[in-house]
C-alpha cells in the first residue's frame, strides 16, 4: 500500500471541507478523484501530502506525510505557477536541483513534449504548455508517488492524450498516481480506482466499470423529433419499448434500449407517423455516474453543469 488515509477530516471555521474520508491506493495504480467544484478534492490532496492541517490518519509510503521521504513524492498543486521568467528547461533544472537525485531536464522535457519550447520563458508559453512544464516539475525527482491536482486542465485534447500515455508508462514502471480531474473520460481511461467526492465525503469508490454498472443507469436512445411532431404521440408510440420514456426540448429519450431494440423503436415511430431528424444511442459512462451521485447528493454546482454542457456541445 503506497497511500492509506483513515477518517481524514478538515474544517475551515464552520465549514467542513472533508468529513471523514478514507481511501487506500496500491502501488503502480492510478487513483482518480472526481467531484464538483468545492467538493474537497484539493483539500484532500493537501491533506494527503501534508500541506494542510488535518485530523485523522494519513500514511504515505508507510509514514505520515511530514515524515515521508520527499525524494519519493512528486506533487503538482492546483493553480501552481512557477517563476514566470525562467525557461522551461531552467524550471526543470531548478526544481531538480532541490532533490539529491533528479532526472535529466532533457529527458523530462521530452516526456512532456516540450523539447522544442525548452528555451522559452514560462510566461511566453501557451496555457497548455505551461501545464506541461508543471507536470514535468512534478516528475523531475522520479517519484514513487505522483500526486497531480488537475494535471491536464488547459491542455488541448491531443496533448492530454500524450500525457495520459506518459502516466500509463509511469504506472507500468511502478509509479503510483493520485490525480484529480474534471474530465470524466480522463478518469475512466486512466484510473484503476475512482473516488467520487461530494460535500467533503467520498460517496463512491471503485473501478470505473464497477461504478458505471452500479450507478450509471440504463442504455438510452435519444431521438431528435421533427418540429411538426406531437411529443405525446412519440412517447405513446415508444412506451412499450425500454424502461422509461421522456421528452425534453423536442428530444425523446427512451431508457433501457438494447442495440437490438433500436430497430423496434424506429418501426414504432414509423407506424405512428412520427418524423425525426436524428438519433443517438448511448451507454452509461462515468459522467452518468457522476451526475447521478452528485445530483442525488445535491452538490452539482453551476460551474460543473456549465462545463458539462460545454463538453457535450463542443464538436
Amino acid at each position, binding site marked *: 500500500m503506497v497511500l492509506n488515509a483513515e477518517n481524514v477530516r478538515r474544517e475551515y471555521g464552520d465549514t467542513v471541507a472533508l468529513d471523514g474520508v478514507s481511501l487506500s491506493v496500491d502501488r503502480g495504480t492510478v487513483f482518480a478523484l472526481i467531484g464538483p467544484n468545492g467538493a474537497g478534492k484539493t483539500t484532500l490532496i*493537501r491533506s494527503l*501530502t*501534508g*500541506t*494542510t*492541517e488535518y485530523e485523522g490518519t494519513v500514511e504515505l509510503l508507510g509514514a505520515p506525510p511530514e515524515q515521508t521521504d*520527499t*525524494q519519493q*513524492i*512528486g*506533487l*503538482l*498543486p*492546483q*493553480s*501552481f*505557477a*512557477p*517563476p514566470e*521568467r*525562467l525557461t522551461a528547461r*531552467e*524550471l526543470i*533544472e*531548478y*526544481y*531538480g*536541483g*532541490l*532533490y*539529491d537525485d533528479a532526472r535529466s531536464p532533457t529527458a523530462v522535457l521530452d516526456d512532456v513534449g516540450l523539447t522544442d519550447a525548452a528555451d522559452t*520563458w514560462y510566461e511566453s508559453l501557451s496555457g497548455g504548455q505551461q501545464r506541461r512544464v508543471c507536470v514535468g*516539475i512534478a516528475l523531475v*525527482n522520479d517519484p514513487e508517488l505522483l500526486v497531480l491536482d488537475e494535471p491536464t486542465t488547459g491542455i488541448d485534447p491531443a496533448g492530454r492524450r500524450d500525457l495520459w500515455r506518459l502516466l500509463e508508462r509511469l504506472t507500468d514502471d511502478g509509479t503510483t498516481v493520485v490525480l484529480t480531474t474534471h474530465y470524466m473520460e480522463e478518469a475512466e481511461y486512466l484510473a484503476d480506482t475512482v473516488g467520487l467526492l461530494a460535500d467533503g465525503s467520498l460517496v463512491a469508490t471503485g473501478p470505473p466499470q464497477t461504478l458505471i454498472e452500479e450507478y450509471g443507469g440504463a442504455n438510452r436512445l435519444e431521438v431528435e423529433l421533427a418540429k411538426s411532431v406531437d411529443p405525446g404521440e412519440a412517447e405513446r408510440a415508444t412506451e412499450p419499448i425500454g424502461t422509461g420514456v421522456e421528452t425534453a426540448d423536442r428530444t425523446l429519450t427512451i431508457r433501457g434500449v438494447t442495440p437490438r431494440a433500436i430497430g423496434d423503436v424506429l418501426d414504432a415511430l414509423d407506424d405512428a407517423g412520427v418524423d425525426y431528424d436524428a438519433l443517438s444511442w448511448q451507454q452509461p459512462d462515468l459522467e452518468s455516474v457522476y451526475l447521478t451521485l452528485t445530483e442525488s447528493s445535491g452538490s452539482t454546482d453551476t460551474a460543473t453543469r456549465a462545463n458539462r454542457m460545454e463538453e457535450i456541445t463542443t464538436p
Partner: protein
Amino acid sequence: MTITRRIRAETMAAFRAFVRRRTAVFFTFFFPVIIILIFGALVQTQPTGGGLFAQPPAYYVPGYLAVVVLFTPLSRVGSSVARHREGNRFEKLATTPLSRTEWLLAHTLVNVGIIGVASLIILGLVVTITGATITFSWLLIPFIVLGVALFCGFGALLGATADSQDGVIAASNTIALPLLFLSETFITPSLLPAWFRPAVSLSPLSYFARGVRAATMGPVADAYGNLLVLAVLTLLFVAVGAHALPRTD
C-alpha cells in the same frame, strides 16, 4: 553537499527571476541615485549652518546605504513571498527537501549580491558628488551583509503576514520610511524631541547606521559593539522570518 545543491538551485532561480525584471532592476539602482542627487547635490549639507543637513557629507553615508539595505530586501523578499503564496509555490516546496531556512538564505544571498553592487555604486557616487571623505573599512562588508539579511527576514515576515503583493508593498513602505529617517541616518538624534530619542535605539537600522558611521568616519572601535547587536538582531529576524514562511495552506 546536498544543502549547497538546494541553496544553489534556489539562489540561481531567484537571481534569474530578479534580473529578468528589468523595471525592478532599474529602480533598485536608480532609487538610491535619486536620493543622493536630491540630498547630496541639490540640497547639499551645510556643516557650519543649521537645518536638516548640518553634518559633514560623510555623516550621511549610512543613510544613503540604508536606502538599499532597508528598502530593497524588505519589499523584494516580501513580494517574493506573496508571489510564492499566490502561485502555490510554497505548497510545492513543502514536498521537496528545501527547508524554509534554506529558502530564505538563498533569497538573502541574491539580495546581498544585488545590494553589494548597489552599495559600491552608492559609495562611489557619494564620494564623487558630495565630496564626502570616508574610510573604506572592511567592516562595511559584514554591516551590509547583516543589514540585508536582517531586512530579508523582516520581509519574509511581512510577506507571510500580508494578504497580497499590494499589501506587502504598502506595508513595507509604511515601515521602511519612518525607519529610514528615525534611525540616526539622515536626522541626528539632536533634532528629535528628547522623549523620542530612546525609541531610536529600538530600530535595528540604528545599529547599522552607527556602525557604518564608525567604520567610515571613526572611531572604528565603536563599530564592533554595533556589529554585535546587529548580528544578534539579524539572527532573530532571520529565524522569525524563516519560521513565518508558509508550509501549509
